[in-house]
């Protein structure tokens, strides 16, 4: 029981195309803040990392998680609290938040991987809702108001992050680091075992590998990076609120991943960018965002389950093979 397998091999593309693409991506992300509002781009980056982190579990391990808002929003609260109340430096707050989300991921993962398929989704959803209720009740989260006016602080005590452009580049570096971790993990022996578990769990077990151990590591890695994304967003926007721990957030990030393309390295990033841009546009148009998100979700599941990047790649592959045959 796993989500439809999309990727066959990522290395079949010619190296030059990938190199050009990578260089273009670096250049664009470096110059973009001079053309687009940097804080908007920062938000986009955080969600690109969040969706890519969810993809480790959803795409590469084939486990439908509906509870990742707990890691994203939970880490946001920890980072905001650390910066504002404890007055820790930026880097310490980030580390604390990631440590928290990893620990939470270990707990959730330990419980959730006892059940498979549909039950896994329900368990993650319920556990995340528990965090939501705790966030409402605990005094330090500020209830409905959240934690506001969070100071951004100084990076290593020298770089002032209150400049939005500086903040953008710091987030860019950390998100790039997160993406590198994901890329390394997926293309390592660990990543191949994950892929094998997704294809045929019984066979992997018969080879003497414990699938649950691998699933748990993947889940914790995913939770940690989701936490990094949440902490960065909280500090960049100087606020941690209930909105980040709701089930809507868990659903939205699954939508981003699905819309961009499951089990592809850059697909979830594309999906996140599209959804964030769309929300930005919708928020000024007066159309109900939640309604539109739900609608896109349904259309995406009905009509193109491969996602934007998945469909594009399929189209590219088909057109190339057609050319080879002619």
């Amino acid at each position, binding site marked *: 029981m796993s989500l439809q397998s999309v990727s066959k091999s990522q290395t079949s593309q010619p190296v030059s195309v990938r190199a050009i693409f990578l260089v273009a991506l670096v250049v664009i992300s470096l110059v973009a803040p001079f053309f687009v509002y940097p804080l908007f781009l920062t938000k986009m980056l955080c969600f690109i990392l969040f969706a890519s982190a969810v993809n480790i579990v959803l795409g590469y391990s084939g486990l439908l998680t509906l509870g990742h808002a707990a890691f994203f929003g939970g880490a946001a609260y920890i980072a905001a609290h650390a910066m504002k109340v404890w007055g820790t430096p930026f880097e310490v707050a980030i580390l604390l938040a990631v440590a928290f989300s990893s620990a939470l991921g270990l707990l959730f993962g330990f*419980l959730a991987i006892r059940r498979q398929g549909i039950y896994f989704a329900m368990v993650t959803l319920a556990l995340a809702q528990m965090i939501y209720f705790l966030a409402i009740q605990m005094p330090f989260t500020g209830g409905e108001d959240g934690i506001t006016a969070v100071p951004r602080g100084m990076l290593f005590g020298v770089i002032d992050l209150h400049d939005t452009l500086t903040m953008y580049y710091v987030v860019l570096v950390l998100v790039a680091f997160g993406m590198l971790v994901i890329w390394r993990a997926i293309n390592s022996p660990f990543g191949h075992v994950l892929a094998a578990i997704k294809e045929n769990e019984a066979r992997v077990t018969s080879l003497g590998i414990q699938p649950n151990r691998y699933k748990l590591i993947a889940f914790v890695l995913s939770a940690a990076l989701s936490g990094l994304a949440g902490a960065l967003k909280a500090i960049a926007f100087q606020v941690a609120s209930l909105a980040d721990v709701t089930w809507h957030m868990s*659903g939205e990030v699954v939508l981003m991943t699905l819309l961009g393309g499951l089990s592809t390295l850059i697909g979830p990033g594309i999906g996140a960018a599209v959804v964030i841009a769309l929300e930005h546009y919708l928020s000024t148009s007066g159309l109900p965002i939640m309604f*539109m*998100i*739900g609608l896109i979700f349904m259309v995406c599941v009905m009509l193109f*389950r491969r996602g934007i990047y998945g469909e594009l790649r399929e189209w590219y592959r088909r057109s190339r093979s057609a050319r080879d045959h002619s």
Partner: protein
Amino acid sequence: MTEFFGVPVVVLLGQVLLGLINGSFYALLSLGLAIIFGMLNVINFSHGAFYMLGGFVTWIIFSHLGIGYWPGLLIAPIVVGLIGALSERLLLRHLYGVDPLYSLLFTFGAAMMLEGLFRYIFGSAGKPYPMPSALSGGYNLGFMFLPVYRVWVIAIALVVCFGTWFAIERTRLGAYLRAGTENPVLVQAFGINVPALLTLTYGFCVGLAGFAGALAAPIYQVGPSMGANLIIIVFAVVVIGGMGSIAGTIVTGLALGIVEGLTKVFFPTASAITVFIMMILVLMIRPNGLFGRER
């Protein structure tokens, strides 16, 4: 005054009763969820949205058309059931062939869309619905005050749950349903229209959710987020009970309502997360749920 662990028995009984009401809603919703899962192999996340829809139908026909509670209790499930049957026929049906996770995501999107739509039209605030006059007031039992509406909710929920159980376990149509769950191809070969049976099942179970929504209107306010908050708790209930048996699902729903009510007495702050804590405990001890079998 008699006491139990330092708590007056009256308070305890009151909370048990309150818990039974929540439990009735858990039972009504998890029952529909379990039947849909059994027949269609779909986890219907939009079940909560249909519950909300039931509440809103009751409220809209009252505030705009002046149709009161009793007709509303009948109209809401029918309207919701028809909408559900239509959505199954037109959309959900096309997802039976693919991984069940996609149908979960589809209904998830549908729930978001419905909640977003109602929030856009009616705003986030809850709408009060007047208590029907025949059911207002209460009995004075000497040791506690028993509101009539609570007794009514628990009684009617039990009747509906039992009726559904009876229809599935003891009637011919129910036998077709159960047979269809086991082997749809074979049942189809016997000349039973399985696709129609699936539409009927979905429409009926979603109608049950709509009925629960109408039932909830006078005690909980009718609002866009009433469904999602409840359905996530019901998911935990379903994980605890397992979806193997219909009777088991009903019992789990009611029992968890009571446990939640009792928690309110002893640890008031933990009552919101009681069901989730129970879920964690069950996952550690009996991963397949109390009445469950691994599917």
